[in-house]
Structure formats: C-alpha cells, structure tokens
C-alpha cells in the first residue's frame, strides 16, 4: 500500500488556524509524559496561566498546577484508557490587581506515533464568561441573604407583637379593676347623696364617672387596635336604639364642650332608629368622632351632631367649625398613625389611632364613613349604617 503524498499547504493552513484559534480563545496546551512530567507546551502556555517568563517544561504537573494534587489516580486511569478525560472548570487564580483569572483545565489521553504516549492538557482562559457567571451568582446569593434577613426580622417583629399583646391585656386588666370601682362608687354616690348637697358637688361626681367612662373607652381603643392588627376583631350585635346611644355619649362629652367654651347642637331623628350594633364598639366610634370634633375646634367654635334615616340607612353626622383639613390631609386621615400637619404644629395630643379605629369599626358594622372638610372652616364626618337584621357575629 502506498501513502498519498503529503499536502503541505493544507498542513500549514491547519497549523495557522490552530494558532489563530488559540489566540482568540486564549487556549494553551501542554504534553505530559506518563511519569507526569511536562514535556512540551504551547508558546502561550505560561501567558494563559498569567505566569509569563516561567519555565514549566521538565517540571511535574502537580508542581505547576496544584489542582492535580490528589488527582493522581484519575490521571493514571486516563493514561490506561480506563477514563476518557478529567476536567476542572472555573479554576480561580488571583491576579495582582485583585481580579480573578478563571481557567478551564482538561486532560485527555495522548497516543501519537511522533509525540509518544502521555496526556494532553488543555488550558482555556474563560475569565470573561466566568465573570458574568460570578456576578449572577453574587446577585442571587445576596438576594437570598436579604430574604433570609427579612424573614428573621419578621419573626422578631411577630415575637415583639405577641409580647405587646400580652402586655396590653395585662395592663388592661390591671387598669379596668380600679376604673370599675371608681365608676360604681360614683354612681352609688349620686344615688345616695342627700338632695340638699350643693349642685356643683353633684356635677363633680358626674364628671368623675364620665371621665372614668372615657378612660374605659380609651382602653377599648387600644384593645380594638390590637384586635384589628391581629385580625381578631369580633363584634357582638344586638338590636339597639341608635338615638339613645348618640344622646348618652353626647351628654357625657358635654362637659368637655362647656370647658372649651364651644357651642353644641344635638339634632336627633324624630323617629326611633333601631339598628343592630355592637354597643361598646359603636360607643367607641361616637366617642372618637365627638372627641376629635371638640379637640380640633377652637374655643367659641361649634359642634353639630345630627341623626336621620335616608335610603334604608341610619345616618350620623358630626360637624365642627374647627381648623379643617387640606385635600391631601383628608386623603390620609383614616390611615393608622396619621396626623395632620396642623395637629402637630398646634401640639394637639393624639397618636393617629382614633379615625383609623372609627373607620374599621364602622365597616365592621357593614357601614361606611365619609368626610368633607375645608381648611380653616371645619370638618364633617358622616357615618352610614344599614338598617335591618342582626348580622351573623364574626370578624370585623
């Protein structure tokens, strides 16, 4: 059999293509003898390893590339033809400027009549692709860490919230006991006092009992807020006389109106309004609306309270000639902890709980609340409550 003549031109071309390919892809190679000593390397080998000028021929593979320490058995398996290749991808090398060089290393068997037997090591600089991969991994890990931190913070907050609820229920219990005694003895005194005691003494006792009731509602407010936050607000509806309820609260607040030298008008619907209510919660609503009207109306101003029936709904209106609100303030006034700028500037006490609780409680009664206001003129809150059957008790 005769060999065909060598096509030198084709061989030259192939050699040139290999060189260009190596340059473009930053690929270098080394021939390793079966005794694991490096026998020959491509001219760019140390440049790709970023160790230019070093001489690696004649050195053991392990000493040049530490990655192969411990891989002796795997390399032997390749030499023996028992394993096709060994690859280490994304091998990091620190560069003097702080960046990383990333290399892919692969080893295959070499069996060539001219080059002999051994291993072919191919080293490819994959820094560009690896840097993108690193950035993606970094972002994913940072996101994951941030998520874990948020979950942890959330757990801490829930723990604190449970503690707060526990503290609140203990505080409420401890406050309620003496308050109940104050109210009970106040009522008893009013009943047993002789008729000839000075009228102002009787009035003082009424104020004491009224203030004890106010404090009771303040406590209710805290409890309601806590139950709303926990999603555990439960209402107990009973058929109630709405006019009577409004009248009682108005009477109770009247002394505050007088103290602030404000005018007060109560205009109740002529016909009785019987609607299903959670009485203590509706007292809370009425107390908060009236208390706000009094607080935000200067001395000499006027408070109007009115009830009527309209389109199958009981309507309550609490209007004042107070400081009023801007449009943006009106938009935020039912939000939790919201306080208007003028309230803060005028140092009017409050924590931004009242109207939030009012809205939640009104809606828990299947009703709605509206507000119209004008800065410097006054505000009008209107509550609409459906007439009709007692709804099924449940969550607000």
């Amino acid at each position: 059999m005769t060999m065909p003549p060598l096509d030198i031109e084709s061989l030259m071309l192939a050699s040139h293509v290999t060189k260009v390919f190596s340059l473009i892809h930053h690929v270098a190679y080394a021939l390793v003898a079966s005794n694991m000593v490096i026998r020959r390397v491509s001219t760019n080998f140390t440049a790709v390893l970023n160790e230019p000028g070093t001489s690696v021929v004649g050195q053991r593979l392990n000493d040049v590339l530490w990655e192969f320490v411990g891989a002796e058995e795997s390399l032997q398996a390749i030499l023996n033809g028992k394993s096709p290749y060994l690859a280490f991808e994304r091998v990091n090398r620190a560069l003097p400027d702080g960046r990383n060089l990333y290399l892919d290393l692969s080893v295959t068997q070499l069996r060539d009549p001219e080059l002999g037997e051994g291993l072919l090591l191919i080293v490819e600089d994959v820094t560009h692709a690896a840097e993108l991969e690193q950035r993606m991994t970094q972002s994913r890990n940072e996101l994951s860490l941030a998520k874990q931190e948020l979950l942890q913070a959330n757990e801490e907050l829930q723990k604190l919230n449970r503690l707060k609820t526990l503290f609140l229920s203990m505080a409420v219990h401890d406050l309620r006991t003496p308050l109940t005694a104050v109210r009970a003895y106040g009522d008893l005194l009013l009943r047993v006092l002789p008729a000839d005691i000075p009228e102002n003494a009787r009035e003082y006792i009424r104020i004491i009992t009224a203030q004890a009731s106010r404090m009771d509602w303040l406590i209710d407010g805290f409890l309601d807020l806590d139950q709303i936050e926990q999603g555990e607000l439960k209402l107990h509806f009973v058929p109630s006389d709405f006019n009577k309820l409004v009248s009682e609260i108005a009477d109770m607040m009247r002394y505050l109106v007088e103290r602030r030298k404000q005018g007060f008008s109560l205009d109740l619907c002529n016909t009785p309004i019987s609607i299903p209510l959670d009485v203590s919660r509706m007292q809370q609503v009425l107390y908060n609306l009236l208390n706000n009207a009094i607080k935000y109306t200067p001395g000499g101003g006027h408070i109007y309270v009115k009830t009527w029936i309209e389109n199958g709904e009981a309507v309550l209106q609490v209007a004042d000639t107070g400081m009023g609100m801007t449009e943006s303030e009106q938009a935020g006034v039912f939000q939790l902890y919201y306080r208007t700028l003028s309230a803060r500037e005028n140092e009017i006490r409050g924590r931004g709980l009242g109207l939030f609780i009012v809205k939640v409680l009104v809606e828990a009664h299947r009703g709605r609340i509206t507000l119209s206001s004008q800065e410097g003129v006054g505000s009008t809150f209107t509550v609409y409550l459906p007439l009709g059957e007692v709804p099924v008790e449940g969550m607000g």
Partner: protein
Amino acid sequence: MKVVQRKVCLLGDFAVGKTSLVRRFVEDRFDDKYLSTIGVKVSRKTLQRVDNTLNLMIWDLVGGNEFSRREIGYLVGATGALVVCDLTRLDTLDAVSQYSHQLRTVNPQSVLVFVGNKVDLTEQRVITDEQLQALSDSWNGSYLLTSAKTGEQVEFAFSQLAQKIEEILP
C-alpha cells in the same frame, strides 16, 4: 525531610465564610466584602510537622445551589474537609450534613472537622454548641468555633484537620 502533599476541601453553604477562612489561614488577612466564589480556588499552605513537611492543598469550593455534579467531582482525592456553617444562619447547619454526605460518598475515609464560623457575631448567633456536638457525633468528627474576622481558632481548625489526616494517612 519528607514532603507530603494532601488535598483538603472547604465545604459549606454560600456566604458562610469559606473563602475568608482560607484567606485568613493562608494570607492572614480578612476582607469584610462578600464576594461569591464560583468554581474552585486552590491555595497552598505549608505546615512543618514533627516528621515531615506537609503541603496542604486547600480547595475552596463554591457553596449553595451552585454546588453541582461538577463540584462533587472535585472532591475526588480529598483526604479531609472543613465543613463550615454560619453560626448566625440556622439553615447553613442543615447544609453541613449534605456536604458531609457527599464527601464521604466519594471518599469514605475522609476526615471531617466541623466549623461554626462568625463566632464574633455573638448577638446574632442562633446555632448552639449542642447542635454542633450532635452533628459532629453523628459523623464521627469534631467541631470548632472560628472567626475569620478576628482569626480566632482558624489556624487551629486547619491544624486539627491536618493532624487527623496524618493519623489515618501517616
């Protein structure tokens, strides 16, 4: 004096401080900035032992979801590992068992030293000594608390790993 080379790995979930532990041990420095490792970085540290010079080839491997079949292949030839958890993140303790299992599957005789890192963050610590003790008992290993930031116990952790390796591969 005889020179011995041993391959050891740093295993553990992402951001537990594997790279920082190696940097502290090999270069005696610490960088607060978190930089995710991809692939592998091999560092060398020479330890003078009584009978020989031991070159530890320390493989710092990627952790977390990126630890794949490719990385399992990197465990071949490893004689031991520091398996690291972050004392401030409980989930990193679960990952420790997975990594230990993977290493022991590839190298059944490999030495495991468990490391609870970031011990300097005392306020945020959530993993207890009892948990680490139970873990190391179940893998017939031992555990240490380290801080790559302060350097606490870092050298000792690697030294203990080297000593245990010498006991099984004299």
